[in-house]
């Protein structure tokens, strides 16, 4: 329990730091937001009016504290370009990205677990070479290209699955799942390569340890040794990588979201940056940071489950 409380307390300074960084970053981007929002059609009067409306004429410190005050009461402000509460925009966009992240992770695991185990156990055989080669390919292929190929093969050529047309799960579960398969597949393939490489090397390390030899000497067969003893001990680096991967995916699926036309969280951030909708950018990045913190917390908790020594503060 103390472990969780400690971890939670640590997140507070992190979030404060993130809020300051987000706030200053957007003000450091060259180009006045009001000028960019108005574009070439700006007149001097409209420009001044917009600056006042956005509070850009106030000192930056005052702007920060008035923003933080609202954030603490749960108000992330109104989007400058869409004129709706930022919190609404985020809650509209986040479910799609969470679903995409889970789907991607599941695809990645389904491929990486068996491939990684086989590659490690059958080290230096054709199985190892083939899966390592495939993983290298998977990591090297650009995401957008793979996504495009997936669309051309599954939608344009064969018309098996839709390439766009996201609907929320709550509205139409079947259509939602159908629309999510291709994007999850396209990103999952790539992420599986990372996981598989990590699992393979981590397994190889453990496989040569004394306790494994002992287990084998006691007469355990290979399957039982690997699944029962080796895998668990090899999981820590894989869980770490998975945590980082999930945290990264939650804010970084922009390319997949834009190719498959999914109204996701990553696209919200990028589009808002381009539109200089800095109120939305600030809110979204803050939420994104919060998500990373939560995922990391979960990863830490999972460590404790996998290796109880960590909870006791002894292990690595």
């Amino acid at each position: 329990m103390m472990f969780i409380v400690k971890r939670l307390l640590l997140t507070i300074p992190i979030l404060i730091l993130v809020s300051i960084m987000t706030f200053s970053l957007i003000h450091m981007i060259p180009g006045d937001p009001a000028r960019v929002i108005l574009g070439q059609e700006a007149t001097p009067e409209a420009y001044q009016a917009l600056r006042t409306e956005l509070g850009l004429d106030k000192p930056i410190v005052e702007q920060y504290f008035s923003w933080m005050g609202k954030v603490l009461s749960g108000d992330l402000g109104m989007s400058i370009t869409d004129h709706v509460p930022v919190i609404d925009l985020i809650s509209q966009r986040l479910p799609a990205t969470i679903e995409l992240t889970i789907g991607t992770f599941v695809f990645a695991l389904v491929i990486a677990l068996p491939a990684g185990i086989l590659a490690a156990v059958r080290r230096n055989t054709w199985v190892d070479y083939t899966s390592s080669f495939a993983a290298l390919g998977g990591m090297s292929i650009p995401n957008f290209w793979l996504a495009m190929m997936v669309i051309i093969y599954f939608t344009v050529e064969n018309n098996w699955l839709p390439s766009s047309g996201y609907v929320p799960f709550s509205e139409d579960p079947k259509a939602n799942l159908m629309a999510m398969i291709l994007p999850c597949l396209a990103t999952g393939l790539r992420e599986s390569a990372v996981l598989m490489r990590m699992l393979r090397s981590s397994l190889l390390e453990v496989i040569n340890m004394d306790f494994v030899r002992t287990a084998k000497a006691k007469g355990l067969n290979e399957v039982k040794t690997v699944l029962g003893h080796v895998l668990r001990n090899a999981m820590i680096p894989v869980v770490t990588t998975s945590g980082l991967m999930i945290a990264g995916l939650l804010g970084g699926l922009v390319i997949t979201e834009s190719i498959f036309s999914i109204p996701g969280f990553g696209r919200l951030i990028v589009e808002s940056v381009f539109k200089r909708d800095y109120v939305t950018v600030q809110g979204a990045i803050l939420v994104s940071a919060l998500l990373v913190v939560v995922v990391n917390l979960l990863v830490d908790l999972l460590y404790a489950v996998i290796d109880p020594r960590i909870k006791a503060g002894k292990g690595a």
Partner: protein
Amino acid sequence: MFSSKAHKLLAALVLGSVVALAGCGGGGQSAADPAGNTQAAPAGKKVLNIGLKADPPSMDPMVSTSLYDRQVQNSIYDKLFDISPDGKIVPMLVNEYKVSEDGKIYTFTLKEGIKFQDGTDFNAEAVKFNFERSLGEKSKRRGELKLIEKVETPDAKTVVVTLKSAFAPFISVLTDRAGMMVSPEAAKKYGDDYLNHPVGTGPFAYVEHVKGDHITLKKNPNYWNGEVKLDEVTYKVFTNTSAAVQNLRSGMVDIIDEIPVKEIPTVQKDEKLTAITEANMGYQGIYLNNTKEPFTNQYLRQAVDRAIDREAVVKVLFDGYGSPAWSPFAPGSMAYSEAIDKAPKPDPAVIKDLLAKGGKPGGFSFKLQISTTPANEQFGAVIQNMLKQYNINVELEKVEYGTMLENGDSGNFEALQLGWSGRVDPDPNFYDFVVTDMPNNNANISVPELDEVMNQARTEQDEAKRKELYTKAMEILHENAGYSYIYHNYDKFGVSKKVTGFTYVPDGIIRVAKVDKQ
């Protein structure tokens, strides 16, 4: 050492993955269920899906600043005037109109019996309300309508607009957002939130806007201008244009607003699709700052302007899907003529002579600011290579778009690449960019004779005479060379052959009132 709990966790993880995969496999196997069927439309409804490159932020023409807004707004709202496929201005909600001899008083007689989608009447009061709303403090349309002195409504179908001074492009302004008529009731009811509850007299009524994803409109059953054939129109956002093309090929969308140049052959080869490629009213080019060295020298400006091979630029950058330019007037414009829009082929002797006259016989260097998109970087590289052969050295400065706009305003540049999306009338494409002290005159061009001709052109009512004035203005500008026009943009629409009744209009708006889908 190994708890059974952990075993269960791992087992559940693996099992879960396998189940998920099996589930996905099942999805994949339902191949008999074609992809298109997953779209939200119930059977029997005629739904037209249009792919847009960006999410239109605002459905209120008064506050709209995004070009994408106009695509959707044109389906919700009718305008006082419209543009015909041959680029002419035609009355829309107006039945007929008169202009006083001094060009200051416009009398509009409105069409009768038209209702807004909320059931309220469209009449002279509604028009007056709209003009006044667009002249209000929060309006982004003020600049376009600022010459209005007063609006009167002698009866329910007559509107008299008095201008402070004659302004020939006034009617053309009313073919765009400033001429869109919103329901006064709705505007009053929703106030600042009206942009999320738009009501017009157009062929389609607003249903919903899921920000960043789609906008749905439904048929206006009481549309005044002929029966609307489609039941619904959905605008979907595809920020990746190549993905949009694949969605067009697979039938997920019926029309897309941009085909990337490299994908045009793919669309042309597909027998289910048509590629529509037409020059629109916009242009791209380079500001040469009249008040900054080296371009304080007119001969050096001319040397740069004459050294650019427009045909080659268009070929290299757009595979020919662009139109070489030497004026702001695209081939569809009333002011267009080949004499002023076709630049002479670069002649080394002429350029050498200009450099000598400009006091730099051995060539010179200058900095060109370009924004950081790949397309602009490519453009910069092409210009750099073109000028190199005449010993004109271009140093490319990549600047963020916002900074570039600011540098343009403050004159903090030697040369700067920035174009204009274009309007139907010549004036809004020209006046603010070249007349002394106007807001978009980034190059600080100041030629009294040019100012005089430009002011005459905006008050002249006779079209032929206006064209002569613009030709004269352009000749003066070619001498000054403060802005080097390089190409007119192309609209590149992809349209499914299932779509009938679609006609290209040079303002680049996809009009859906007459469109049907087989």
